[in-house]
C-alpha cells in the first residue's frame, strides 16, 4: 500500500462518517418529532400509526448511527451519538426539526420527506458498501409503507373539507422552502457518489418533483412557486432554534443521570 492510498481510504471513511451522521440524525429527529404525537393524536388509530412510524425511523437511526460510531472508531455507539452531542454537532436536515404545530404540517412533512426517503433508500440498496446496502434493504419495506400512508393522507386531507384543504396548502407553503436541502450536496456527497456508495442527492430531485406534483394534483393542492432551497445548513450543523429545545427534552435523562439504564 502506498501512502496516498491510505490517505484516500481514511478520507473516504471520514466522509462516510459524516454522511452516516446526516442520514442517521435525520431519521432520529424526524422520529422524535413524530413520537411527540404519542398520546396526543386526534384519533387513537392515527396515534398508533404515528407511533409505529416513529419507531421505524428510530430503528433506522440505530443502524445508521451504530455504523457511524463503528467506522469513526472512537468508542461511541449509537446511544452516545444521540444523547451526548449538542445541536451544532447534529447533521440532520432542517426540514425534520421544525415543530409539528398541527396534523397538516405533520402529515405534509412526512409526505415531502417520504418521497425523498423512499428513493434514497431504494438507491442505497445498490450501494457498493455491503453494510449500507444491508441497512437499506432492511429499511426499504418500512419506508415504502410510510410513503403509501402519507401520500394517501395528503390526498384525503387536501381533497377533503375546505378547512383541511386550506390547512394542507398552508403547511405545504410553510415547508416548501426547507425541501431543497434534501438535494443540496457538498464534498461529502460527491465523495460517496463517486465511490458508488450512495446516490448523488441532486439525482433524486427530478423524481421527487414529479411524484410530489402527481400527488399534489390529486390532492387539489398547488405546488408553491417559490424556491425550494431557501433554508439550508442543517447538514453542516447550522440549525434552527427549534433543535436545541428538542435535544434538551430528548437528552435530559442521560445528561442528568449519565449512563442511566433500565
Amino acid at each position, binding site marked *: 500500500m502506498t501512502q496516498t492510498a491510505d490517505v484516500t481510504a481514511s478520507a473516504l471513511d471520514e466522509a462516510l462518517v459524516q454522511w452516516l451522521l446526516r442520514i442517521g440524525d435525520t431519521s432520529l429527529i424526524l422520529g422524535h418529532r413524530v413520537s411527540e404525537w404519542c398520546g396526543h393524536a386526534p384519533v*387513537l*388509530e392515527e396515534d*398508533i400509526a404515528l407511533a409505529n412510524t416513529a419507531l421505524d425511523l428510530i430503528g433506522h437511526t440505530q443502524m445508521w448511527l451504530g455504523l457511524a460510531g463503528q467506522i469513526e472508531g472512537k468508542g461511541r455507539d449509537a446511544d452516545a451519538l444521540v444523547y451526548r452531542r449538542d445541536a451544532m454537532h447534529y447533521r440532520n436536515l432542517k426540514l425534520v426539526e421544525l415543530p409539528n404545530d398541527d396534523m397538516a404540517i405533520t402529515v405534509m412533512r412526512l409526505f415531502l420527506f417520504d418521497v425523498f426517503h423512499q428513493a434514497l433508500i431504494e438507491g442505497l440498496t445498490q450501494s457498493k458498501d455491503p453494510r449500507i446496502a444491508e441497512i437499506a434493504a432492511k429499511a426499504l419495506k418500512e419506508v415504502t409503507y410510510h410513503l403509501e*400512508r402519507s401520500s394517501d393522507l395528503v390526498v384525503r386531507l387536501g381533497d377533503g373539507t375546505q378547512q383541511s384543504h386550506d390547512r394542507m396548502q398552508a403547511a405545504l407553503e410553510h415547508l416548501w422552502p426547507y425541501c431543497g436541502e434534501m438535494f443540496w450536496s457538498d464534498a461529502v456527497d460527491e465523495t460517496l457518489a463517486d465511490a458508488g456508495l450512495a446516490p448523488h442527492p441532486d439525482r433524486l430531485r427530478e423524481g421527487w418533483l414529479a411524484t410530489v406534483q402527481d400527488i399534489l394534483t390529486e390532492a387539489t393542492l398547488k405546488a408553491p412557486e417559490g424556491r425550494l432551497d431557501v433554508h439550508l445548513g442543517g447538514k453542516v450543523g447550522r440549525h434552527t432554534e427549534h433543535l436545541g429545545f428538542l435535544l434538551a427534552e430528548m437528552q435530559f435523562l442521560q445528561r442528568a443521570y449519565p449512563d442511566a439504564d433500565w
Partner: protein
Amino acid sequence: MSQEWPLWEIFIRGQHGMSHRHVGSLHAPDAEMAIRNARDVYTRRKEGVSIWAVRSTDIAASSPSEKGPLFDPADSKVYRHPTFYDIPDDVGHM
C-alpha cells in the same frame, strides 16, 4: 367529535391459521383506511397474513335476551355428541 368515523370489525388470518378470527374493532372513514388502521393497530407483532374489515352495522347478531330459547334446547341432548359408537379395532387410533 361531532362526526365520529364509523366502527369496523377487524378479522385477521394468522400465520398458520386457516380462518380469519375476530381481533377487535376500530374507527375509520372507509374500507381502505380501515385496513390500513388495522395493519397499524392489530398486526404490529407480525400477527397476520390477511385482514378483513367489516362495517359493524353490517353484522347481524342474535339478541342476548333470546339466549335461552336459542341455545338451551341443546342442553340435554347428549346423543348429539358422537360418543356412543363402538369403534371397531380395525379402525385403529382415531
